[in-house]
């Protein structure tokens, strides 16, 4: 435990990294399956079945990363867990209701009597939408330091809309990989429309974050930090261009490039996340509580870390197995 210096320093940093990684994986993975839900009303009945088939085997594992992230917050930074979740009491409750509805709708829409299927389809859409909006709203309020004023709530509404569009966008890029024919064409169209939303969202968060506090402003706009960090926005612009070009040319004849928009969107999510992480470090509750102050006792963190390091590669291994088994274009989900 003392091998890497003071455990009260390196353990919180490690856990902040693990938590960040979990949130990032969650946002990309559940982002695409929530996004598919957000796009649901724009598809016809048969396309809906195909859309569900494209995420059916994965959504549960994707959502587990949320449990992992919130679990790490809970176990590694218990004081922050309480502060953040109590402040976001209502949006959290709304998100949970959304997650519940969409999660069970997967099953009910396939098993309930045929006339009820449409109801569960609507609930699947509503649940996905509400979840995405609530998560975006919480992101905005978190950036604004968990203060509730007219301005911060307005910003929260903006981030809610942008994250929802972002999820819809990555959902569409996922469908471009997993489908073909008319649905794939539709998905390309959805992605084209969503690209504007992505740009607005990234710009809004990037411009707003530095002005929340002098500290963050200094972190970004001083020499040499500004130059070292320049690749972040530049690469983001590059990936937006890649998206714009690839979406203009898809679907391609041999379906060789259908993975490009999803990969580029994931890369954008990673860059945006890296920017946010840089802004807020070392705070876990913005401007109030650092990761060092909020961390659990080192001996508790250490025993979790041991398990994590042992289990994480295995988790990645069998997640990869699952994505391999269900690779290729989505086909009807059957139990036999």
């Amino acid at each position, binding site marked *: 435990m003392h091998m890497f210096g003071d455990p009260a320093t390196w353990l919180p940093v490690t856990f902040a990294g693990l938590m960040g990684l979990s949130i990032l994986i969650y946002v990309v993975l559940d982002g695409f399956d929530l996004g598919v839900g957000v796009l649901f009303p724009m598809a016809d009945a048969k396309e809906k079945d195909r859309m569900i088939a494209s995420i059916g085997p994965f959504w549960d594992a994707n959502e587990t990363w949320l449990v992992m992230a919130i679990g790490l917050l809970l176990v590694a930074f218990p004081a922050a867990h309480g502060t953040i979740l109590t402040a976001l009491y209502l949006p959290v409750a709304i998100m949970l209701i959304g997650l519940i509805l969409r999660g069970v709708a997967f099953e009910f829409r396939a098993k309930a009597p045929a006339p009820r299927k449409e109801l569960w389809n609507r609930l699947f859409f509503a649940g996905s939408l509400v979840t995405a909006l609530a998560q975006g709203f919480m992101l905005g309020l978190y950036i604004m330091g968990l203060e509730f004023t007219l301005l911060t709530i307005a910003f929260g509404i903006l981030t809610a809309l942008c994250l929802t569009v972002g999820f819809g966008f990555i959902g569409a890029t996922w469908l471009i990989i997993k489908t073909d024919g008319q649905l794939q064409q539709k998905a390309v169209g959805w992605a084209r429309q969503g690209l504007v939303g992505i740009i607005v969202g990234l710009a809004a968060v990037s411009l707003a974050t530095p002005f929340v506090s002098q500290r963050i402003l200094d972190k970004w706009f001083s020499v040499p930090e500004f130059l070292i960090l320049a690749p972040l926005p530049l690469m983001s612009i590059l990936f937006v261009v890649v998206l714009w070009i690839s979406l203009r040319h898809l679907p391609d004849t041999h379906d060789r490039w259908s993975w490009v928009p999803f990969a580029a969107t994931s890369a954008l999510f990673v860059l945006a996340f890296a920017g946010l992480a840089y802004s807020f470090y070392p705070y876990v509750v913005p401007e109030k509580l650092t990761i060092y102050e909020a961390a659990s006792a080192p001996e508790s963190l250490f025993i979790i870390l041991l398990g994590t390091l042992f289990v994480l590669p295995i*988790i990645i291994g069998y*997640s990869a*197995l699952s994505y391999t088994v269900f690779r290729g274009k989505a086909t009807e989900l*059957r139990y036999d």
Partner: protein
Amino acid sequence: MIDTLLLSRIQFGANISFHILFPTITIALGWVLLFFKLRFSATGEERWMEAYRFWVKVFALSFAMGVVSGITMSFQFGTNWPGFMGTVGNIAGPLLAYEILTAFFLEAAFIGIMLFGFSRVPGWLHTLATVLVAFGTTLSAFWILALNSWMHTPVGFEMRDGVAHATDWLAIVFNPSMPYRLSHMLLASGLTVAFLLAGVSAYRRLIGDEQPATLVTLKTGLVLAALLIPVQIFAGDLHGLNTLQHQPQKIAAMEGNWQTGPNKPLVLFALPDSEARENHYELAIPNGASLILKHSFDGVVPGLDDYVADDGTPLHPPVSAVFWSFRIMVGTGLAMLAISWASLGFAWHRRRGVAGLHKLLLIGLVAMTFSGWLATLAGWYTTEIGRQPWLVQGVLMTRDAIADVPAPMVLATLLTYLATYAALLLAYVGVLFYLARKATEGDRLMPEVSTSITQLKTAE
């Protein structure tokens, strides 16, 4: 006045009650599905695979309900009970983390292969996925019951500046009540599934199902029930004796016993009055409680009056809730014993076996379909309300863990959760019996779906 504390308790109670219904099914149903799969591999008889195909749907549905309601739980620690993690986070944290790391991901990754991979992966991998999912659900129960048991019988830690720090992880995980609670819960899961299998199969028999798969699941359910219920009664008795040792005030509330003393009766019926601190309309078997708890007529049974602070505040749980929950659990258990043994005894004496079960017994089994849920919930209410006013016995009071959230806000979320849960529960039970009717009548109920599948197939 209804305050934040009571509302938060009701909300957490509602969430965890709703949640536990589904793991209780998936823990044992996973193993039952494995049994069906292995029987099919061994015999090649189609009826086992038919049974698998029907019950895997129930499993998938229950699993989804468990997952989403479980996510809710992990947030509620923070939204409503920050003091819990603040005080005992160093112990609860790692146990929860290990549940997520070792169990959740395992289940989540392999459930996809188990449900939809039958024709995509080799047979052995599909069987392995079934094993891993079943193992994952059981492992999940192991960690969560280790934590829950620690809250009842905390050991292996020391308090520094009001915060618990772990000193002995083995002692924490295998704390004194853990083996009893885990066995009791796993057996409860087995019984819940046994009666679910028997109840739904009996329903299918009643509406004219003659398929061999229905008979085989009916028989599996009944045999499982008849085997597990005596074991459960024995395990429950051991658990009770363990509780007597570590949480005597809970036993006193379960027995409705106010004064400590020998020759205490076993109270069958009473209305405990916590104002007057006595029972009304008591119907009891003389010396019964002493005999059960101390195994002698003059055994001394602890009484609630020993657990009152000097200023008169009770330090024991609310009596009526614990007293009645316990009786509902035991009553349901006895009904389970009666009907499972009666059914098997009846089948034994007929040449047609379970196919010749009398209609009245079948109706009884249908009525008992969810008896496992009833007993499980009543049991959990007994033990959890029985821990009050403590959240962690002797370490943290429930009222000291509460979040500073305004009561109307908690009320609003509570009502929303309750409405959602009620609707989902109705939908779940409705779909379960709908699936049973559909399986009985073939695909006749859903012609439009089968045509769309045919169309899909031709399109491919």
